[in-house]
């Protein structure tokens, strides 16, 4: 794949893909580029922040409010959990329970339990529960048999 950079616009950045036909690979590349530097608007103490999705540890819905957990702080967003689920990359963000979406890139350890839940330890040491209802989906996603 040939990559060229052309400086010919006044502001912003535009990416154009040239190809013979639109294959699955091309669609994946398009998705990847459009999600690059993707941000979500969120608030904390009345201030609005633009959160880069790569930084998110997990997103949780509590009492119909949605919270975004970052290393060191928590922000609230207007978006509902299902809206964020649709917005985020399904290969990176996994719905691990009815009320939580986790960033798979922030998990350092998975520990299956006798109760059939899985405990996921995140990079900040926090532990979140992958409920047994969602364990099958996780296994399918990461390619674990059995």
């Amino acid at each position: 794949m040939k990559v060229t950079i052309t400086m010919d616009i006044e502001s912003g950045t535009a990416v154009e893909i040239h190809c013979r036909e639109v294959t699955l690979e091309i669609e994946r590349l398009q998705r990847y580029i459009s999600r690059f530097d993707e941000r979500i608007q969120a608030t904390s103490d009345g201030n609005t922040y633009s959160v880069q999705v790569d930084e998110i540890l997990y997103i949780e819905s509590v009492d119909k409010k949605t919270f975004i957990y970052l290393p060191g702080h928590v922000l609230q967003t207007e978006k509902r959990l299902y809206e964020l689920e649709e917005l985020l990359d399904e290969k990176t963000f996994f719905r691990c329970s009815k009320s939580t979406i986790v960033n798979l890139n922030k998990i350092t350890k998975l520990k299956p339990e006798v109760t059939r839940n899985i405990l996921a330890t995140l990079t900040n040491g926090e532990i979140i529960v992958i409920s047994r209802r969602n364990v099958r989906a996780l296994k399918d996603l990461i390619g674990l048999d059995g």
Partner: protein
Amino acid sequence: MEDIKKLLIYFRNALAFSYSWLVLLTVLLSLAGGNADVSVIYLVKLLALCAWGSLSFVFAFFAKIMKKRGFVFCLTAFFILFVPAEVLMFYLMGIFEGAGTPLLWISLGVIVAVFYISAILIDVFVMRRRSKVYTDKLMEYRSKNQAG
């Protein structure tokens, strides 16, 4: 609020399940022993034991603060909460015919210990090995995903 509602539902289910089975068992044992009488005070004590057991179980395994602690921690908490009450109620209910014999109490202790040790062994030898497999697979998936 939703969590409390859920915990109350679990408590109700655990209490209904344990109490109905234990009442049934009590009646069967009474009949088998040739004594068809079950006193109301005995049933009330049994209800108290089941209620405490259900409460301990729901707290140890379903409360939000406990969920993230792992199975062995939850089981330990359950045993700490329930076993002393169980011993006391067994004594008050005269399950072992009054104070019972050391052999009966030791048998109870052995049953509890075997169950607890088995859970720990499963956690150490099975779950920790699986944990490594799961974590390795996730890392492999991540590196593939990032490379792709």
